[in-house]
């Protein structure tokens, strides 16, 4: 099969699934495509992207749990498994292999509150191997006294690893919190060559 034929087939297949989605569940419109990464060094990851970019990199217990979460959170659009996320998967593979620690992926945070978005935008600018404090991220996001709110935004980061919320620590150098669990935060920082206890 040529590349064009494969693309045409994928398009036709998607139309069939989306037609069935609309007819049977009332869900319509631009779908959320997802893929699973089952055996990364940090466990199972669920990935999901819409037309505008990557929307989820989540720590998951498994596929069912991740898909149910997507269906519940995005109650109005169809969700479907797709190999269209291969570029995201490859970028994460490169990251875990240590070949490339930063990401050149389009991320869509449009569903989040404005302040959360600003915090995550600033976080996305922290290079691998470096860390910032919650207070500093809050300041860069325009609200120096909102470090707790910044922590909240980071805790609810829908795009883990790619938006590197693990690079934000407490002012005393302790790890603070992490949605995926502190051992994973520690692993990621070590993997990137950051020294969390030396700031």
């Amino acid at each position: 099969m040529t590349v064009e034929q494969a693309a045409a087939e994928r398009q036709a297949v998607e139309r069939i699934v989306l037609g069935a989605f609309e007819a049977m569940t009332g869900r319509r419109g631009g779908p959320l495509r997802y893929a699973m990464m089952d055996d990364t060094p940090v466990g199972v990851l669920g990935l999901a992207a819409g037309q505008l970019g990557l929307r989820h990199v989540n720590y998951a217990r498994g596929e069912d749990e991740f898909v149910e979460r997507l269906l519940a959170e995005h109650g109005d659009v169809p969700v479907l498994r797709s190999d269209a996320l291969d570029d995201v998967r490859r970028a994460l593979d490169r990251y875990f292999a240590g070949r490339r620690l930063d990401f050149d992926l389009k991320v869509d945070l449009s569903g989040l509150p404005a302040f959360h978005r600003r915090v995550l935008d600033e976080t996305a600018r922290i290079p691998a191997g470096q860390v910032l404090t919650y207070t500093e991220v809050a300041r860069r996001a325009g609200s120096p006294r909102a470090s707790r709110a910044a922590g909240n935004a980071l805790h609810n980061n829908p795009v883990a690893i790619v938006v590197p919320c693990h690079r934000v620590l407490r002012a005393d150098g302790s790890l603070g919190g992490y949605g995926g669990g502190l051992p994973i935060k520690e692993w990621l920082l070590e993997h990137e060559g950051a020294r969390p206890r030396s700031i």
Partner: protein
Amino acid sequence: MPERTDRAQHIALLLAKHGDELARHIRRIVRDNDAAQDILQDTMIRAHGGLARVAAGSNTRAWLYRIATNTSLNHLRARRRERAALLRHAAERETDGPEGSSDHQGLDARRAELWARVAGLPERQRLALTLRLADELDYEEIARRLGGTPAAARANVYQATKKLRLTLGEP
């Protein structure tokens, strides 16, 4: 209606996880995108109805493939019968006289009855059915030729097919 919502949620989950590969599979068997959507929906309804009987952890995926395969093959068989009936009828009109057959009388009577039914369909249904079965057009093309939407073309073919099935004595 909680039951309905549960059903929609469950089907959404099945479609999300398996819709892609099942649609690909079905489409390869029937080579028809419109029919593939109908068959995928049929598969999901059957899967939803039967899932309670399938033990958790057993191979849901293989089971879904089996339903999709059977539904696709049934579709092809029904399609072949309908098409054969329609083409028989068309050939009869061309030559204006049936070829020799031992089952001559019965076949003639069946053809006559079928033709009466087809001819008795509302015009749009008859035209849509002919374009679909004899010319093998998709619903978009039928809509382009007859006017109206693809969904309306689909509905016309569906209604006509239902009547035709009754004529042929099929469920």
